[in-house]
């Protein structure tokens, strides 16, 4: 089930994109990336930014920190930046809130990265195993009819065993039948003590 890697980053000419579909996809992605960069700049450097973008379809997307309207008004000279205590309080509250959200985001992104690595490790394990001598571990497309039938029979036996075991556990009411170790622990051991 390996995903085919994408074509990767390509250098493109900075001129209006001819193909409408590409244009729309590009707009969507780049707009998103632009807002992300703006958001990061605000966080990292504590500056105030507003970006307004019209889509090819005529819709308008805007990003603003602290918010679009205050920046726009300030720029257009409509209202001078307020300096009251209330404003400072609101500011401080917003800053804390953003800080908190950024921590959350960082955490999720880290977990995502960890998960990605784990996935790669597992892929690697499977790749190694499928190249080994055990023919039944080869990808299914590489097996011949005879092998497939044997494999099928064995897996069907396994299926029965799983059903039996499941029934057995249900009957016993899951009374502290704690496994010796969880699947992940087992896999960790497997990695550090490769059995093959």
């Amino acid at each position, binding site marked *: 089930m390996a995903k085919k890697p994408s074509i990767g980053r390509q250098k493109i000419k900075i001129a209006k994109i001819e193909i409408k579909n590409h244009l729309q996809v590009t707009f969507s992605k780049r707009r998103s990336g*632009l807002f992300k960069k703006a958001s990061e700049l605000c966080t990292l*450097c504590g500056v*105030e930014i507003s970006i307004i973008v019209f889509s090819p379809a005529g819709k308008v997307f805007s990003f603003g920190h602290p918010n*679009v309207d205050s920046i726009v008004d300030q720029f257009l000279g409509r209202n001078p930046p307020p300096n009251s205590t209330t404003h400072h309080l609101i500011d401080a509250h917003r800053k804390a809130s953003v*800080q908190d959200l950024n921590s959350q985001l960082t955490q999720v992104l880290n*977990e995502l990265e960890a998960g990605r690595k784990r*996935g790669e490790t597992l892929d690697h394990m499977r790749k190694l195993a499928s190249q080994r001598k055990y023919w039944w571990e080869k990808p299914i497309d590489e097996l011949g*009819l005879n092998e497939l039938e044997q494999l099928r029979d064995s897996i069907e036996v396994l299926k029965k065993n799983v059903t039996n075991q499941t029934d057995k556990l249900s009957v016993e009411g899951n009374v502290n039948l704690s496994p010796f170790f969880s699947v992940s622990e087992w896999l960790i051991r497997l990695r550090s003590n490769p059995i093959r």
Partner: protein
Amino acid sequence: MTRKKVKLAFIANDSARKATFKKRKKGLMKKVSELSTLCGIDACAIIYSPYESQPEVWPNTAGAQRVLTQFKRMPEMEQSKKMVNQEGFIRQRIAKAAEQLKKQCKDNREKEMTEVMYQCLTGRGLQNLAMADLHDLGWLVDQNLKEIHKRIDSLKKSASSQVVAPGGSSKSATSEMARNGGGQGPGAGQQEQKPVVDLGADAMQSRPQWFTDWVNNPNENMGFGGDDQMMLPFGDGHGAMWSSAFFP
């Protein structure tokens, strides 16, 4: 391109912050410009910073004013529909990342269970698995069976000459396996099911280290469930439990 991953927090160091601001501001403006050109759309960017009294503007003051007029002319609802501030934007990013994480965990779980499945095919017992694991294993087993059936059907249909199973192993391999399994079960390991296939010579030769350990410690509890059918076709005739190498 930076080599280090930057922490998503306010940069405390003044000079570092200023340097970062300069670079990123330049980059941001470049990105706005590219977006505008590539997609043929109008845009503007305004940046207020403590480093300059006047805001930095793209494309320029007049251009920005034009875009803003256009913006302000739109109905309030249209303006707000796709409007977002820092908090909202970060929340969106969190939601998206969480979604990706969920999918990733599911994929990883499937990969893990695939490993477990192959282990079970070589005789690892199911005793160590919790209900949830069994459940997922059962699902995976079904998925694989589906795929195999499909493949078998398609191969039969194409009716080309088939590749014969490898390992012209003799009957002796099979009976040795049967004997091993029978002799070392806790209660006379009854074999409900005779091995269906001839064991490839390869499998007999490449005994893993832990198997050797196990053979040298015949007192290890085999842990065969009495009702388990022996799906030993791929096994080395060994038992279900890991050798002591795996126990703390």
